[in-house]
């Protein structure tokens, strides 16, 4: 052992005078006389800077432009923007297409969601018990890789009343008459929903599958010992554990229904008789068909506000511990 005197602790210096015994141990309840200068962390901020600048230029700046535009009569020709006393906004209250647009958007999203979640979860449960899971999932992924506009074109071809194979199938089966599914005001919405379901159900399936893999096996087994069969096991254990995953899936799809209208533009363009003119489609028409950019800006702002609220909810779900671990559910 080394010589004791070579190492000493200065417990008898000035510092020790101020130390106090509490609960049988030494404590210090004074502050250091002076602090060392804190080293710079600017290094990190410089790394962040380019991305922040680019993002600011392409998001914040346009956002204020959007507000500015919504308050003016915007003229692309260069005649200058004219203040128009909130006319863009007041018109919205009388604009039935705007209000219908919201309604149709909600209806469209709800229909897509209902079918995709139902089908997607069923598919996930079946795939989870299937030996061919890997290869089947890979095949089912394929529609998602397709540009939505191409998917729209392909389905437009399939739906066609005179030479579309799917129309022929539906007509031969007696489900549809002469008019194509996109031609009738009552069926067109179903037509575009089917395309969305075809393309995006696999996403719900993928997310659900990832969730099912995380259902704690010990919970399932404990429930079986308690007397549950596979069906009860699913509803009592798997499903509660899946909720956070489903919530993420639903919110993601919901926002994508707001974000993308590529397929609808090709399939119906909002018709017939505006029966599929969901809000983003209407916004597209107003802004880029009629070039009423001021009014478009007002509509765009309403759409943005709603998506930001949805986004806030989504981020909260992302952050919640439930999305990382399954909560333990009682057996019976």
């Amino acid at each position: 052992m080394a010589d004791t005197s070579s190492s000493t602790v200065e417990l008898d210096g000035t510092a020790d005078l101020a130390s106090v015994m509490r609960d049988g141990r030494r404590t210090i309840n004074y502050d250091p006389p002076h602090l060392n200068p804190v080293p710079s962390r600017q290094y990190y901020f410089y790394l962040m800077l380019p991305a922040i600048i680019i993002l600011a230029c392409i998001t914040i700046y346009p956002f204020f432009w959007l507000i500015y535009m919504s308050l003016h009569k915007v003229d692309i020709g260069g005649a200058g923007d004219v203040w128009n006393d909130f006319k863009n906004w007041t018109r919205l209250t009388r604009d039935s297409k705007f209000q219908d647009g919201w309604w149709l958007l909600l209806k469209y999203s709800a229909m897509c969601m209902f079918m995709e979640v139902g089908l997607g979860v069923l598919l996930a449960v079946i795939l989870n018990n299937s030996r061919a899971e890997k290869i089947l999932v890979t095949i089912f992924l394929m529609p998602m890789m397709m540009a939505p506009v191409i998917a729209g074109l392909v389905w437009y071809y399939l739906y066609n009343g005179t030479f579309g194979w799917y129309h022929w199938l539906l007509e031969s089966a007696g489900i549809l008459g002469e008019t194509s599914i996109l031609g009738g005001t009552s069926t067109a919405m179903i037509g575009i929903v089917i395309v969305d379901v075809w393309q995006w159900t696999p996403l719900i399936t993928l997310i659900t599958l990832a969730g099912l893999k995380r259902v704690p096996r010990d919970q399932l087994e404990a429930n079986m010992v308690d007397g549950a069969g596979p069906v009860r096991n699913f509803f009592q254990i798997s499903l509660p554990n899946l909720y956070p995953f489903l919530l993420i899936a639903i919110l993601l799809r919901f926002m994508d229904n707001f974000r993308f209208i590529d397929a609808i533009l090709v399939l119906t363009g909002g018709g017939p008789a505006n029966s599929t003119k969901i809000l983003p489609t209407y916004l597209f028409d107003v802004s880029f068909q009629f070039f009423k950019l001021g009014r478009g800006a007002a509509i765009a702002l309403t759409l943005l506000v709603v998506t930001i609220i949805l986004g806030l909810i989504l981020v909260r779900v992302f952050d919640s511990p439930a999305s990382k671990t399954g909560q333990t559910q009682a057996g019976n």
Partner: protein
Amino acid sequence: MASVKLSNVWKMYGQTEAVRDLNLTCADGEFLCVLGPSGCGKSSTLRMLAGLEHISAGDIYFGDKRVNDLPPKDRDIAMVFENYALYPHKTVYENIANSLRLRRMDKALIDQKVKKAAAMLEIEPLLDRRPAELSGGQKQRTAIGRAIVREPQLFLFDEPIAHLDAKLRAHMRGELKIMQRDLGTTMIYVTHDQLEALSMADHVAVMHEGVLQQFGTPHEIYSQPVNEWVAGFIGEPPMNFVDCEMVEEGGSLCLTHPHFTQVLTEAQAAIVRAKDPAGQRQVRLGVRPDEIAVLAEALDEGIKARVLVTEPLGGDMLVDLALGDSKLLAKTKPDFAGQRGDECSLTFDRNRWHVFDRASGLAYF
């Protein structure tokens, strides 16, 4: 090689003070353990030594050189991390060689040094594997190899064997101590495990809530704890504490308790009187389980207690005892015959017991 000195070092994270006014020195070539429960500031101390954390206040010296503002690479230290922090994409060989390559050392020399370190740690057959293919013990050896191949002036070990299983840990304690003696490099070793600290270190610094409690040789820490907290923290099973009064009786100092009266030795009485001449004192008696002798029969002169339960441990036996309202734990030979509920008598080892001031917790002896 260098000595290390921490002078009035503080570490603050926002409002939280992780290390408070720490003064510590470690001589050249010494093995210093920083021991304390989790959250005591021992890891922060080590990270400040490594240069991974900014020193909020105070100074750190390696030899005579103040190193506060030096980045890790210029401090000539090597560190072994709690979770080993091996490069997952590099082989064991590359992991060990990395620091030498960064110094642009000659290839043949690197090879020679890596092989030597690997031989010393007995991981030669593993050199081509990646960390994911290694067991915990092998990863830990690789991490140590990465540190020793550098031949730094100071080793910093952050709970390097905490995640190994008990058997391997016991084995590694011996190996690490041998390694440090062979290399002769100054080593600062952080742990929460007193067994590691007591068995390996030349000196132990005991910390709690950012404050240094005691600094001394393992023997001093164990046999002369400076306060009640250290006394309770060191030793397994922990020390028994019994509240007593200390009174003058016929020229000697006595500890009185409803169930016993014990007389201090002359030397102990002299210490107490010198420190604190007042008459009556509220104190706490501390006796380690192996400093209590238990007899299975109730003798007149002994302290009478009742057996609550016995716990045979093979080579020893632990006896849980009730002394009035307080419970005591004693360590005896395995042939102790007492049964649950039996009366028995105890004797405390007067030369090894400790007495603390009940108000401050400071030890008289």
